[in-house]
């Protein structure tokens, strides 16, 4: 029997996947500025398989479901994104447990994903990576939920933070990833991964049952 609270996770994954596929060209263009222009292509190749196999993904519980997604991402996505996003899904799966997934559990999973990305990427907030959108957005989400906001409005507010933070990476100097090779020249354009995260949050805000 499907686990309670599972719908939310399905919605998040499906929105991420659809956003990645819909924005393939845009995300690649962003990565072309100081990177190598494959971010959107790489993500789309993995997430399009998530969508294509959507109905057949094992839904025994949230952890299993997320592990299946993680396997698709790690086996089909190359570049830096494959290991990073794959690790994120794998860690989220591990944190999912088998109980009911409420706000606290969801936040724990997001935190686990962030920790996984940091470890895998040997990176942190301030390095001009997707973490610079993801971490502030999750912080905000946590704050809004703690303040008693409903999920829908908390996600919407978090999406605004993600967007602002992602745009804010423009003024940062890249310290991780391919953009870091360019030193000073990385300043002046936003990080592709951070914008990617912001767009996913925005799409999620739009899709969340209000």
């Amino acid at each position, binding site marked *: 029997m499907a686990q309670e609270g599972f719908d939310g996770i399905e919605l998040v994954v499906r929105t991420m996947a659809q956003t990645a596929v819909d924005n393939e060209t845009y995300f690649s263009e962003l990565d072309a500025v*100081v990177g190598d222009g*494959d971010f959107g292509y790489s993500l789309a190749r993995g997430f399009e398989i998530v969508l294509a196999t959507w109905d057949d993904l094992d839904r025994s519980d949230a952890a299993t479901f997320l592990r299946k997604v993680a396997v698709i991402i790690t086996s089909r996505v190359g570049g830096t994104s494959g*290991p990073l996003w794959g690790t994120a899904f794998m860690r989220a799966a591990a944190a999912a447990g088998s109980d009911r997934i409420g706000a606290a559990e969801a936040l724990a999973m997001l935190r686990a994903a962030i920790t996984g990305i940091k470890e*895998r990427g040997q990176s942190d907030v301030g390095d001009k990576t997707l973490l610079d959108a993801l971490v502030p957005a999750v912080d905000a989400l946590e704050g809004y939920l703690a303040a008693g906001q409903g999920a829908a409005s908390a996600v919407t507010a978090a999406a605004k933070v993600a967007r602002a933070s992602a745009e804010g990476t423009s003024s940062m100097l890249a310290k*991780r990833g391919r953009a870091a090779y360019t030193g000073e020249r990385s300043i002046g354009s936003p990080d592709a991964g951070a914008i990617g995260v912001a767009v996913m949050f925005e799409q999620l805000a739009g899709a969340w049952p209000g």
Partner: protein
Amino acid sequence: MKKFVNDPKDFVPEMLRGIALANPATLRYVPEYNLIMRADAPSENKVSIVQGSGSGHEPAHVMIVGKGMLDAACPGDVFSAPPMDYVLETTKLLNSPKGVLHIINNYTGDRMAFDMGREMAEAEGIRIGTVIVDDDVAVKDSTWTVGRRGVAGNFFVIKAIGAAAEKGAELDDLVALGNRVNAVSRTMGMALTSCTPPAKGSPLFDLGDDEMEMGVGIHGEPGRRREKLASANEIVDELLEAVASDLPFKKGDDVALMVNGLGGTPISELYLVYGRAHAQLTARGINVRRNYVGEYCTSLDMAGCSLTLVRLDEELSSLLEAPAEIPNRIF
């Protein structure tokens, strides 16, 4: 997009299929993992040498699989490190009692994929050694970057390791040899034009008619700086100064000099560049003992070149001279 391409998503597999069809007796193509391997690998008596990296750098690395060089290459898509899965499955297919050696260009994505793949392969009991190539002097090392990039110098690391492995060297010795070759190899490249990834369909970056990019990466990453287009001699002198002063290479050193085309530059120009570089090194009292002029590690159809210097000793010279049998051949 002025390319020979069908569906851009099939670009890499269709290229690999071409390589396999051209070398039916010696190579095996495993489509599931984008893998090109020696048909006779793995061998019980030989460490298996594996290199993965993004595609778009051909002949590196899928066209240098063969006796005396790589046992397998598992490329990712254009400019994307292979997914971890490919690394793992390639490693399993190439498993030898003498071990498997991973040669990795120093990029975040490549290192992550190989780290994860190694972890999982070791969990299955496979012995793995790792050599990281980071010969690009364009990128200034600093505490906060991931270090220098691996570029055309990987040819020398692979060639030396490949030759030594063929003679039966042990895994640890090969790792030491690879590190030793990498430590005496320095490269810098520059772009006259951008390159066009098939999936993007348009140039990766814009370079004005009167501009060039010094220190460009082989994935089209921006380099040290953009400059006004200069004469061949001026370009060579600038690259050479950056490369030679880095190790540094000194008067009396014996070196191998490679002029590597980035994909869109004709070999006529590469020899013109070679002539200047050779003459300038001679003027510095540096002895060019071996030379390489052609395409070794490209960036799709980018016009441009890189210069690599490798400090030679007797052992390294003889490993570089050893024969090899790879798809990339003249006859």
